[in-house]
C-alpha cells in the first residue's frame, strides 16, 4: 500500500471519530457545531501526555478521551438547557472560546535539547511518539481502524440497548420521552460526555498521526464537516457518518481536477442530497428495510446451512 493511500485511509479513520461524536448528539436531536473543540482537547491532552510526560500511547489516548469527556460534560450542563438553534450557537461559541484559549496556551519543557509543547498560535510540534517508537504509517492506520471498529461495536451495542432506544426517543420528541419515564437531561448529558470522549480519542490519534497540531486546525470548518457526515451518510445507523466521511473524501478525491473549486462543488452536492434525503442515505427507514430484508432472506438461509 503506498503512502498516499495510507494517508487517505488514515484521514478517513480519524475524521470518522469526530463524525461519530456529532452523530451521537444528533441522535438526541441536538445539532452541535462544537465537537471540534473536544477533538482539539483530546489532541492537546494526548500530545502533552506522550511528548511532555512520557506516557504510553494507550494511556495518552485514554487521557485525551477523559479530557474530551470532562470538557463536554462541563459545557453540556449549561448548554443542554437550550434547544435547537440556541444550542447550536452556544456550542459554536464554546468551541471558538476553546480554540482561542489554545491560541494563548503555552506550556513547553525541554525534551532532548529542544523546547517541546504547545506554543500558542505557533502550535504544538514534535509529538513524535509514534514516529520515535518506530510505528510505521501502515501500523498506525491499523491502530486507528481497530479503535474505530471497537467504537462502532460500542455503537452497535448502544443501538440494541434501552439507552439507545431512549436516545432516539429523545431525538424524536423529548417531551414524549420524558412522559414515558426517560430521564431526558441525564441521558443528554451522558450522551454529550461520551460524544466528547469519542472526539477526544480522534483528536489524540490525529495529533500522533501528524505529529503537529495548531489551533487553526480545530475551527468551525471541522465542526461543520463532522456534522455534515452524519447528515450525508444517514442517521439510521452509526455506519452512516462513516459512510459520509468515505463519500466526502472519495468524491473530493475523484474531482481533484477541479482543484480548489471542488470544495464548492462538493458543498452543492451536499445541499442537493439534504434536499432529497434530509436524514441522509442510511436514514432510519432505509436501515429498517435493510434489516427486514436481512432477516427475511439472507439470515434464514445461513441458519439452514
Amino acid at each position: 500500500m503506498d503512502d498516499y493511500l495510507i494517508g487517505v485511509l488514515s484521514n478517513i479513520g480519524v475524521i470518522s471519530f469526530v463524525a461519530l461524536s456529532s452523530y451521537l448528539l444528533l441522535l438526541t436531536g441536538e445539532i452541535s457545531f462544537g465537537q471540534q473543540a473536544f477533538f482539539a482537547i483530546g489532541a492537546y491532552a494526548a500530545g502533552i501526555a506522550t511528548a511532555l510526560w512520557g506516557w504510553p500511547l494507550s494511556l495518552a489516548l485514554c487521557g485525551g478521551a477523559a479530557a474530551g469527556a470532562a470538557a463536554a460534560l462541563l459545557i453540556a450542563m449549561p448548554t443542554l438547557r437550550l434547544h435547537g438553534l440556541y444550542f447550536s450557537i452556544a456550542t459554536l461559541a464554546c468551541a471558538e472560546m476553546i480554540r482561542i484559549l489554545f491560541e494563548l496556551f503555552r506550556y513547553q519543557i525541554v525534551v532532548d535539547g529542544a523546547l517541546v509543547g504547545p506554543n500558542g498560535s505557533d502550535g504544538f510540534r514534535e509529538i513524535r511518539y509514534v514516529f520515535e517508537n518506530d510505528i510505521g504509517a501502515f501500523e498506525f492506520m491499523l491502530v486507528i481502524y481497530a479503535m474505530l471498529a471497537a467504537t462502532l461495536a460500542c455503537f452497535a451495542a448502544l443501538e440494541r440497548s434501552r439507552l439507545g432506544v431512549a436516545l432516539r426517543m429523545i431525538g424524536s420528541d423529548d417531551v414524549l420521552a420524558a412522559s414515558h419515564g426517560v430521564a431526558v437531561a441525564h441521558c443528554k448529558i451522558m450522551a454529550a460526555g461520551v460524544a466528547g470522549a469519542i472526539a477526544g480519542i480522534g483528536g489524540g490519534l490525529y495529533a500522533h498521526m501528524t505529529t503537529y497540531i495548531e489551533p487553526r486546525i480545530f475551527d468551525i470548518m471541522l465542526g461543520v464537516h463532522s456534522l455534515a457526515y452524519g447528515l450525508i451518510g444517514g442517521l439510521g445507523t452509526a455506519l452512516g457518518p462513516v459512510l459520509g466521511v468515505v463519500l466526502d473524501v472519495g468524491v473530493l478525491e475523484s474531482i481533484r481536477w477541479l482543484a480548489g473549486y471542488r470544495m464548492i462543488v462538493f458543498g452543492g452536492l451536499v445541499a442537493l442530497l439534504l434536499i432529497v434525503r434530509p436524514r441522509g442515505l442510511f436514514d432510519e427507514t432505509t436501515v429498517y428495510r435493510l434489516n427486514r430484508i436481512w432477516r427475511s432472506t439472507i439470515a434464514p438461509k445461513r441458519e439452514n446451512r
Partner: protein
Amino acid sequence: MPANSAPALLIALGAALSIAIAGGSGSLAQPAGARAQADIQCSRTDMPREFDCVVTLSDRRTGEALGGVDLTIRLDMPSMPMAHNMRPVKATEARSGTYRARIRLDMLGDWALQLNLKGRVRDRVVKTLRFDESGAAPVDATRTAPGQHKH
C-alpha cells in the same frame, strides 16, 4: 432506567481504548539518533499554484549537512484539516544536504509541509508556509501575535 446501560457503554469504550496498546509500550526516553533541522524556500513557477521548493537539511546538533536522505514532502492545510489529500512529493538531492521538489497546490494559503526523512536519518520536520501570488514565506514570520492587531 435507560441510563443503567451507561456503565456498560463506558466500560466498552475503555476496552476499545486498550486496543491502542498496540502502539503503547514505549517511553519518553528516545534513542538519541540524529535530529534534523530544515530550512525551506519556495518560489513560484510559471504554472498556477505551482512552486519550486529548496529544502536544506542539517543535523540539529552539529549543523552538518544531511546528505543521502530519502526526503518526501506531505502537504496539508491547517485551516482545512484532512480535506486535501495531496499525493506526497519526493524531493531529489541537488547537492549534499540540499533537496529540490516541485509542489502543486490545490489553492493558495497556509500549508503545513511535513518533511519525512528516511534512510541515513529517520526524522520528521513540520514547516508552515504561506503561499500567495508572490511566493511563499514562513507563517511564523507573517503571523500577528494575539493582542498585536493593527487597526
